[in-house]
């Protein structure tokens, strides 16, 4: 039994030396790219974060934990982390509320119309984030369309830009298509007869959705949430343009340290801290969802 299992993934030479099967070589290019452009830079960053800051060069090769020590005890840093995570979670929640009905509708359309609607949802991705965010600035700024309209109606002005509200609007707008895409696959895979069966067994439309379709769509909710959360907390341009350095998120702080203050060890330490926070949140979320999806596999 064991030998046949082994034989299916790798072959053996007559001497019994293991040779990877040709198909396992297909992953090699990806491994190289990930290794050189993701893992190595991360390790390098980890290394720099343990070096001493120096105003002559990027950093001084002298081991120190100071970068972590003072940041981990700085309430300002924790406030920024809190705000970034809060923006990320709100972006996930609101884009989920917006995307789910749309994805559900799409999943119940005949293929041709679904393709058309899908194109409408994806089209905004063809325009750069910067341009779209400038578009929001025209709408949201103090002299923008919304406030002009409010003024014309003699209503008090609304502060929609250079604060968290503006950033949140921008983030949601950019990431809704990703959420729709992530939800659509799993929703489409659900047999519409399942809801019919539930209805014939006495479930109302709402109950049929809540007891059958919703739990079956959780894998899509999970992957969509993770994708959007990760993208939202690492967004730079949107919080920069719509937050105007008043709403400061972690990426803004990191870029400030690295490019403006040329303090590489400080920026690296902040990145590593935030990376750990994000991983902990994602792991907790995945555990929670796994509990709800225990019947699926």
């Amino acid at each position, binding site marked *: 039994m064991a030998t046949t299992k082994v034989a299916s993934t790798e072959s053996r030479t007559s001497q019994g030396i293991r040779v990877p099967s040709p198909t396992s070589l297909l992953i090699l290019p990806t491994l190289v790219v990930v290794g050189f452009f993701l893992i190595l830079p991360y390790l390098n960053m980890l290394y720099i974060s343990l070096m001493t800051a120096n105003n002559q060069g990027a950093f001084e090769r002298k081991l120190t934990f100071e970068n972590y020590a003072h940041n981990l005890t700085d309430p300002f840093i924790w406030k920024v982390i809190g705000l970034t995570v809060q923006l990320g979670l709100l972006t996930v929640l609101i884009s989920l509320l917006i995307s789910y009905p749309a994805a559900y509708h799409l999943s119940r359309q005949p293929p041709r119309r679904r393709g058309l609607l899908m194109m409408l949802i994806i089209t905004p991705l063809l325009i750069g984030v910067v341009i779209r965010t400038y578009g929001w600035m025209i709408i949201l700024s103090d002299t923008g369309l919304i406030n002009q309209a409010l003024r014309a109606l003699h209503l008090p002005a609304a502060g929609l830009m250079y604060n968290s509200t503006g950033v949140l609007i921008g983030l949601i707008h950019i990431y809704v298509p990703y959420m729709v895409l992530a939800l659509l696959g799993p929703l489409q895979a659900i*047999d519409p007869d399942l809801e019919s069966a539930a209805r*014939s067994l006495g479930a109302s439309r709402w109950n049929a959705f809540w007891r059958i379709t919703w*739990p079956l769509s959780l894998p899509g909710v999970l992957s969509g949430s993770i994708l959007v959360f990760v993208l939202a907390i690492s967004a730079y341009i949107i919080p920069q343009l719509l937050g105007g350095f008043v709403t400061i998120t972690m990426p803004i702080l990191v870029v400030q340290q690295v490019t403006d203050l040329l303090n590489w060890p400080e920026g690296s330490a902040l990145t590593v801290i935030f990376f750990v926070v994000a991983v902990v949140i994602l792991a907790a979320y995945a555990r929670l969802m796994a509990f709800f999806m225990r019947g699926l596999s």
Partner: protein
Amino acid sequence: MLALHGISKRFHDVTAVSDLTLQISEGEQIALLGPSGCGKTTTLRMIAGFERPTAGRIELATRDITGLPPERRECGMVFQNYALFPHLTVDENISFGLQMRHVPSSERRTRVRAILERIGLKGLDRRYPRQLSGGQQQRAALARALIMNPKVLLLDEPLANLDAKLREEMRFYIRSLQREFRTTSIYVTHDQAEALVLADRIVVMIGGVLQQVGEPHEIYERPTTIEVADFIGLSNLVPAEVAGVAQGLADYRTAVGTLSGLARDGLGVGSQAWLSIRPEHFRIVREGVAESLGSKPNHLHGTVTDTAFLGNLMDYRIEVGSGLRLRAQGSPGDAAAIGERVKLTFAPQDAWPLPKTPNGHD
């Protein structure tokens, strides 16, 4: 019990079901039989409440249910792909309906246990549907519908996804359940064998139109139209003209001589008709074999052009002259070979005429 009054369903410019009227009495087993796309599934979905008829009325136990949502109809449904909830266990699947009806959990448990035992899924209640075989999934789907004591049980091609041997087995299994539960049921199928085994009455639908309603032997032996004859079983259709009628029988003038068959109302002398003869109704004797066919009518002589061994039967194509080729089946013992001359005969009672309509088969 269940009455369909002139129901129709149009999807955009396609008419799926047109003006269907049908009465079904309490405890009756109905098979809705027809080729794919004949509107039989649409009819079932209208009864279940998944589709709203474009016209007409549906009554269940004298109550008009045409506009009622599916959850208030008390129709049980078994789907072709079973539609078992993949994230729920067998037990949770079967008790789902009871839960929706707020049946207390202690009663739920006893009822689920009883039906699991009856349906032969005892001990599998903690499994998920994907951990069951096709036949077990089928049983679970039946149990899930039956536990609700539905007024009508609707089955949409429930055996279509099973392999041939299991299908045959389940056919008889479903029949035993029907007898036990005595639930009025409507069984949609394109498989005539299923319909013949399971139904008290068969409803034949072709092209969205009801063709014939009758008991299985009636449908098989006395199809009213050429479409029904063509769909149910195998049939030889011989073009004929009525030459004379006497005592329930008639003489038919055909390309291969005068044949004697059953007479039928509305087919007087001179009428054009198709004479339908089932392949199994022929008696085939090899030419030269000293066997007297007696002085009975309906003697034909022909040449075997093709044969197929079907195990319990020998299937022949026999050229009987004037370009007429008949399909005949006989016992495989002493089979005739291709090219051999044979004699064919059939009883007049086995030749049933079908009216020739101007727009029917040529």
